[in-house]
């Protein structure tokens, strides 16, 4: 008889409310707890240099996760982000001969184009997001490798500045991530586009009946995701002072999805939590740093990350009606 449960509404109660709270604020609480733990037990944690390193490292994850949050808000997913980072990195070295600005624009255009392709597959061809972007994950990584077959270093002063310069004591990379966060938050909270993309994720049939340009919204969301991944790719390349399409951005899609889900955006769409996503990215970063500082191997981080994902998805699932 257990199967009949599918047709019955799930019970609601105190437990559900706790889960709802956890889904929304759990990530803030966890980040805070980890910070406190580190302050107490990790030597030199409070030093400025350490903070800078943490923030610089988390910046690309944050940027990619912002785009991922938008896509997931529409009940989609974008697995291609890591490969898009690699492609943008390849574009940078290919076009660096024309100067840094041209190279950067080329990289961003490539990222947006990949997003447009994925978005078109999803919106117009009706391909499932996970399938469409899985194809891109494989194909675009291949393309990047063809364009730049091996690790290529460069010495372009403008680009290197972008990766290492600080303004008012804050690394440029971090400032860019913060500005992009603000822009995306504004987009979600204050614009028609933000309101509409959430509606598309919440109930696509209703969105369509209400006259929303559902297909255009879907394409736009994947374009933004591609664009943001390309930004992250350019920044990572600038920091490395080299392009390495074989390894740049590997598994980035998993980190980004984790950040988004842990941050309280449900995989079923209909809601986007921008700040939660940033917190999710911070949580992953802090976790890694903590385990490394306490001399635990990388594999530990992955296992702990898995537990966190499960916890987040469980909180989200218990909440869904």
């Amino acid at each position, binding site marked *: 008889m257990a199967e009949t449960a599918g047709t019955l509404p799930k*019970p609601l109660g105190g437990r559900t409310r706790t889960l709802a709270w956890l889904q929304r604020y759990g990530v803030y609480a966890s980040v805070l707890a980890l910070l406190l733990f580190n302050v107490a037990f990790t030597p030199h944690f409070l030093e400025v240099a350490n903070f800078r390193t943490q923030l610089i490292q988390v910046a690309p994850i944050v940027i990619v996760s912002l785009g991922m949050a938008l896509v997931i808000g529409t009940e989609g997913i974008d697995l291609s982000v890591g490969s898009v980072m690699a492609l943008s990195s390849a574009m940078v070295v290919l076009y660096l001969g024309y100067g840094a600005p041209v190279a950067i624009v080329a990289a961003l255009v490539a990222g947006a184009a990949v997003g447009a392709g994925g978005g078109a597959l999803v919106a117009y061809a009706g391909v499932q997001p996970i399938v469409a972007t899985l194809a891109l994950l494989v194909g675009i990584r291949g393309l990047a490798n063809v364009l730049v077959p091996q690790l290529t270093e460069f010495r372009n002063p403008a680009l290197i500045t972008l990766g290492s310069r600080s303004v008012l004591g804050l690394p440029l990379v971090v400032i860019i991530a913060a500005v992009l966060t603000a822009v995306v938050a504004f987009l979600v909270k204050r614009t028609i586009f933000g309101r509409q993309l959430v509606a598309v994720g919440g*109930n696509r049939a209703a969105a369509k009946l209400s006259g929303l340009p559902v297909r255009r919204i879907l394409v736009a969301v994947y374009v933004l995701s591609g664009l943001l991944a390309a930004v992250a790719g350019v920044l990572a390349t600038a920091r490395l002072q080299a392009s390495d399409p074989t390894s740049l951005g590997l598994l980035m899609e998993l980190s980004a999805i984790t950040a988004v889900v842990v941050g309280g955006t449900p995989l079923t769409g209909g809601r986007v939590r921008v700040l939660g996503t940033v917190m999710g990215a911070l949580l992953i970063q802090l976790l890694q740093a903590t385990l490394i500082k306490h001399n635990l191997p990388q594999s530990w981080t992955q296992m702990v990350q898995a537990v966190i994902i499960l916890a987040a998805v469980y909180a989200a699932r218990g909440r869904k009606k």
Partner: protein
Amino acid sequence: MSDGTAPVLEARGISKGFPGVLALDGVSFRLAAGEVHALVGENGAGKSTLIKVLTGVHQPDRGELRLHGGPVSFGTPLDAQRAGISTIYQEVNLVPQMSVAHNLLLGREPRGRLGVIDTGQLYTQARRVMSRYGIQTDVRRPLRSLGMGAQQMVALARAVSIDARVVIMDEPTSALEPREVDTLFGVIGDLRAGGISVVYVSHRLEELYRICDQVTVLRDGRVAHTGPLAGLERVKLIALMLGRDTADVRLRGQTEFAGRHTAKNGQPVVEARALSRRHQLHDVSIRVRPGEVVGLGGLLGAGRSETAKAIAGALPFDGGAVVVAGHALRKGSPAAAIRAGASLLPEDRKAEGIVPTMSVRDNIALAALPRLSRAGIVSEARVDRVVQTLMKRLRIKATSPHQKVSELSGGNQQKVLLARSLATGAKVLLLDEPTRGIDVGAKAEVQALIDELAAEGLGVLLISSDLEELVEGSDRVVVLRDGAVVGELSGDEVTEEAIMRAIADGGGVDG
């Protein structure tokens, strides 16, 4: 029916709160064996919540449940089902992608060797059940391909065919045709004869008088009255529900429609010209002038909803044209229809209307966002103004505009959708069952509102399975059958009998 015997199911002093509202406040409820017990009250009175407490969906904050005289508590709906309580919830709760047969026998599929589902047997059994309830349909089709009414009948057949001592029905008839309602009442009669108790929630009062023995009236989460239904006057019942004076209620009529509207002459505000769509619509032509309410009559599957959807750009058509306020619309574009001034209130509010993750406010503003923003940025002040006005005008009951819409009672969700249509500043409203699932008070309000809007010069296309509403609300009624117009009545010709006759004879007239 009989006093003295222990009730089959009893609730004592149940309270249940949600953040911001006390949905049930010390409610007691007794259900005797073999009685049909009506549960009535305004939208948001707490009927569905009481049912959810009785069936283990919600846990009560205070109070106790007793089954066959002994205390029980249900942790999950499954517990209640195992204890012999079978429920049809207000929102159809089946699996739309699965076949009718699978839905009907979900969890009780006939198994062959190796425990594999015996599909042949499954279909045979399903066919037998369905024909008992007079539903002609291919049981292998996915459930979602059926209309709302047929889906409701499947839910019903499923609930009744489970061996139960108590069957609870939350607004089972809201999507049904008169003929199906008769079938349902036949089934309820059989249940009662078999000693099975029924809890029956409905906003259609005449149904209660046909079928129910007892009635419990809820108002604002409290029991306002409980007792036998026979002898309780209809006006008295309404007065109890609304908490008003009987005399005050008596003054008002059956429906709130004031009578004929004065249609302004000239250009029709919406015109459908010879709409055709394979198997669904054949040369349907309809025109609505400003200030006019045109009813669409016909049975389930006659093409009423399809016509409204085609006009609203939500259903592509093969031939014909739609003209709104003089502009020919692009086919299949709801956005174009809304821009031109035609707005659809969809029939299936859960699947096509409500965006459950968003607030009441955002749901209301959804279709009107382009009007409420500048350069792509939403003007919160303008949204607030529109939302506030509409929430007040439609008397939407919510703790705040920011409450999640999925937490509202069914009738209030319906009002939110109506508000969404009005927010677009439409010139013509295509209302598909606008009063489905809303209480007498709200129904009267919506009907008065339709009158008011027509008086302001809007055109209204009204679809309603409630013949009384159709007759009293419409200036003209266009009758559809099998996707074709088979008759048109206007002025004094608009009567329930005439509509029924047109539906029945129609086939002969137009072939």
